[in-house]
């Protein structure tokens, strides 16, 4: 069934089709529609789930941790300052190896008070141990929520699906909604590795002495390393069933490219237009879409970028005092490799500022002209 859906409702459909059993969330613009729709789905019986109203995002995360620990597929959603309020419990959810899926609608952190698109909120949660997937359009929102449960439950790690405020959350476009039967055939019911059960008492999350702590954390890191392969496998398997393929990254015409654009989120879409146009003119341009940020797909990035002369990374975020976060991670991934491209780092589109095909064309032209990149990230479109 194809319908014209806003990104937020595409997320709600993904949750419904995944037969989630527990939802808890606190409203915050621009995420609110997701849980509004889910509460209606619970109300009219189209989704057989418990909808728990809570007094804060901290409590929302605490309650999905509790429900997931009892072996129940759980969901929450947030954005910006709401996600920041969850911070402590994000560490807990991941460390407890709970395969929760949440949606974060990427929105700037205040102040300056701003409700628009910016990846600073979820990227600030980089080291909480959550898998982070950044998506490009409303179809990918729905598909990634469903894939999110399969990934999470395969490696016992929580998954955060991130997408740009308003550019997706409030934008209506066609989405192919699979049937329950199709999703049921692909996503089996959740069978927990360990869960709280009064019939079979066990002790969970005890004090861990220095003698054992490192080993637990090593296994946690191993799960992340394993997740890279799992995200690719799940994306391929999803494609086999639904004819839409996904992976940790998407490399478009990188094989013979001299210049490769590196993007995430909705910036990828206008970049595709520019790529097509430049290729028609005979310019050897490629595109690397960073779908996964944690675990960071080092090998996939090396494979796509090695051999190119220049890579242009566009970041809708900034690590204050350092620069574009994707650019920084990509530089680190490319270090100690031979044949790495020069890496140009640009910051653009913060706080919801539009990024047009013209803007991207401008970055490529600038890189073509340049002999070597600046060591700092360059801010584009400043009106100083």
């Amino acid at each position, binding site marked *: 069934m194809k319908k014209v859906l806003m990104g937020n409702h595409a997320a709600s459909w993904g949750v419904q089709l995944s037969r989630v059993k527990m939802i808890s969330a606190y409203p915050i613009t621009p995420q609110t529609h997701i849980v509004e729709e889910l509460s209606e789905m619970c109300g009219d019986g189209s989704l057989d789930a418990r909808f728990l109203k809570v007094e804060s995002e901290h409590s929302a995360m605490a309650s999905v941790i509790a429900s997931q620990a009892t072996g129940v597929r759980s969901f929450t959603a947030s954005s910006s300052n709401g996600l920041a309020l969850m911070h402590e419990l994000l560490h807990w959810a991941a460390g407890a190896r709970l395969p929760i899926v949440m949606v974060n609608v990427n929105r700037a952190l205040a102040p300056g008070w701003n409700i628009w698109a910016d990846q600073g909120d979820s990227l600030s949660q980089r080291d909480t141990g959550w898998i982070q997937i950044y998506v490009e359009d409303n179809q990918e929102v729905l598909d990634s929520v469903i894939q999110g449960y399969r990934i999470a439950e395969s490696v016992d790690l929580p998954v955060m699906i991130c997408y740009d405020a308003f550019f997706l959350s409030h934008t209506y476009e066609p989405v192919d909604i699979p049937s329950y039967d199709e999703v049921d055939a692909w996503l089996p019911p959740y069978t927990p590795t360990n869960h709280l059960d009064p019939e079979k008492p066990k002790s969970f999350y005890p004090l861990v002495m220095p003698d054992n702590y490192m080993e637990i954390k090593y296994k946690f890191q191993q799960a992340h390393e394993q997740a890279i392969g799992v995200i690719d496998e799940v994306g391929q398997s999803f494609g086999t069933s639904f004819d839409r393929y996904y992976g940790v990254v998407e490399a478009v015409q990188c094989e013979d490219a001299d210049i490769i654009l590196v993007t995430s989120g*909705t910036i990828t879409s206008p970049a595709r237009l520019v790529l097509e146009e430049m290729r028609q003119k005979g310019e050897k341009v490629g595109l690397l879409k960073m779908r996964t940020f944690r675990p960071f797909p080092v090998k996939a990035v090396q494979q796509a970028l090695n051999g190119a002369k220049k890579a242009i990374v566009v970041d809708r975020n900034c690590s204050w005092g350092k620069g574009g976060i994707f650019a920084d991670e990509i530089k680190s991934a490319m270090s100690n490799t031979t044949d790495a491209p020069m890496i140009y780092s640009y910051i653009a589109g913060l706080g919801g500022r539009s990024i047009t095909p013209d803007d991207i064309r401008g970055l490529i032209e600038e890189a073509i002209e340049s002999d070597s990149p600046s060591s700092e990230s360059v801010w584009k479109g400043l009106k100083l």
Partner: protein
Amino acid sequence: MIEIRLHGRGGQGSVIASKILAVAAFAEGNWVQSFPKFGVERRGAPVEAFLRIARDKIFIRSEVTDPDFVVVLDPSLVEVIDFTTGLKENGSILINTPKTPQELDLSDRFKVSCVNASKIAADHRLGSVTSPIVNTAICGAFARSSGLVGIDAVCEAITQEVPIKPENNSKAARVAFESTLF
């Protein structure tokens, strides 16, 4: 690709109008993209919504700055904003007004069409007489003046998207379709 910008005031349903037209154009086999100017939705304040209609998938993710078509839902906006900003040479304008295109001072630069959507909405008891909800009437008039969507698809989209008084809303769209002036 056709780019459309809708101007209205918060509460008149400009965003829903954009969605109704998107649903109608999609039902007729197009790709569509519809979104509000983000964050300005306040009752009575000038608001904008954007709509793109294309044969193939749309990859642009920014506001419509050079529209092919402008729709004005509120006649009082004529004095407040320049809704022709960026409108392409020979672009089209559809205005909710009791006036005729000849009475407006735009006709030589743009293709202008008019519909008295406020009266049609009030006649069909949509909103109140002082603040009628004109979006469904405007959608009907858009079908007529643009030819980009059929009136049947618009009425079907209204039935699907408007939970309150769907019949009156569909009728208002058809009356507006019939009474659009060029």
